[in-house]
């Protein structure tokens, strides 16, 4: 079933603040095997000009994707979440996320399309810190695969 085009442009209320912790950043950096000291050593981060340790570039996805859940699980939109895969991901950074940030995400539906029975949803997440400063924008393209198998569709990352 094609998604309702009238959802394009819909913006959801900002999420509750997510407080970025040093240890959460460390855990993420270890999970991706990245030993860059800017992620774990406040002095190394300060030497680069930051007030505290910074997060790896893709760290913020955990926060924006959770926020995108407001859209994905909106019963009015009617997306078949069990068939959702992650198509594209893009970030535009104003500054790196750092420990101590309290981040809110405002999600907007940028586009809704149907192609070969697949529903394609583009969600933009605007991330702001406690002072209202813009930190990063995340664009997430989600594809809800057609209910019937379609030959031309390859399995992509099953981010669901």
């Amino acid at each position, binding site marked *: 079933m094609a998604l309702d085009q009238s959802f394009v442009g819909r913006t959801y209320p900002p999420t509750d603040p997510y407080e970025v912790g040093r240890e959460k950043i460390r855990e993420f950096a270890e999970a991706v095997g990245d030993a860059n000291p800017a992620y774990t050593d406040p002095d190394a981060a300060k030497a680069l000009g930051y007030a505290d340790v910074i997060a790896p570039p*893709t760290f913020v996805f955990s926060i924006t994707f959770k926020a995108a859940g407001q859209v994905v699980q909106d019963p009015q939109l009617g997306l078949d979440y069990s068939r959702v895969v992650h198509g594209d991901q893009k970030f535009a*950074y104003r500054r790196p996320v750092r420990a101590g940030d309290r981040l809110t995400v405002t999600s907007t539906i940028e586009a809704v399309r149907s192609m070969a029975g697949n529903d394609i949803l583009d969600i933009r997440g605007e991330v702001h810190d406690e002072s209202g400063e813009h930190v990063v924008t995340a664009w997430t393209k989600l594809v809800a695969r057609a209910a019937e198998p379609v030959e031309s569709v390859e399995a992509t990352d099953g981010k669901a």
Partner: protein
Amino acid sequence: MTAKIAYDDVEVGTELPARSFPVNRATLVQYAGASGDFNPIHWNEKFAKEVGLPDVIAHGMFTMAEAIRVVTDWTGDPGAVVDYGVRFTKPVVVPNDDQGAVIEVTGKVGAKLDDNTVRVDLTVTSGGLKVLGMSRAVVRLA
């Protein structure tokens, strides 16, 4: 910000040091915990096969996180990344054996832009297949 590479020292076509990143089931469990993405296709072989995948696959965001390391290792300052985007084209299949899978990443300067920024074009493969498409980052150099 203090990238250790100078804008004037690079040209279109300058290659970044290539990297290989191993990934096995333990890596995926660790990433699931750190990222909060517990989708069973990333750790449960039975579930993955039931939904039509050949085996457990790596999180696309894990692959995206590894690929940008070619850029952040090069510049030294991860905060110098201005822009980063990828398309998830093929899954990284991670077999349950001693080897797991390997994500191979190369990068080269595709364009020199304004404000000391350059666009780095990344090529990301696993098992000889391109797993990320349109994989590009803009980074601010010294």
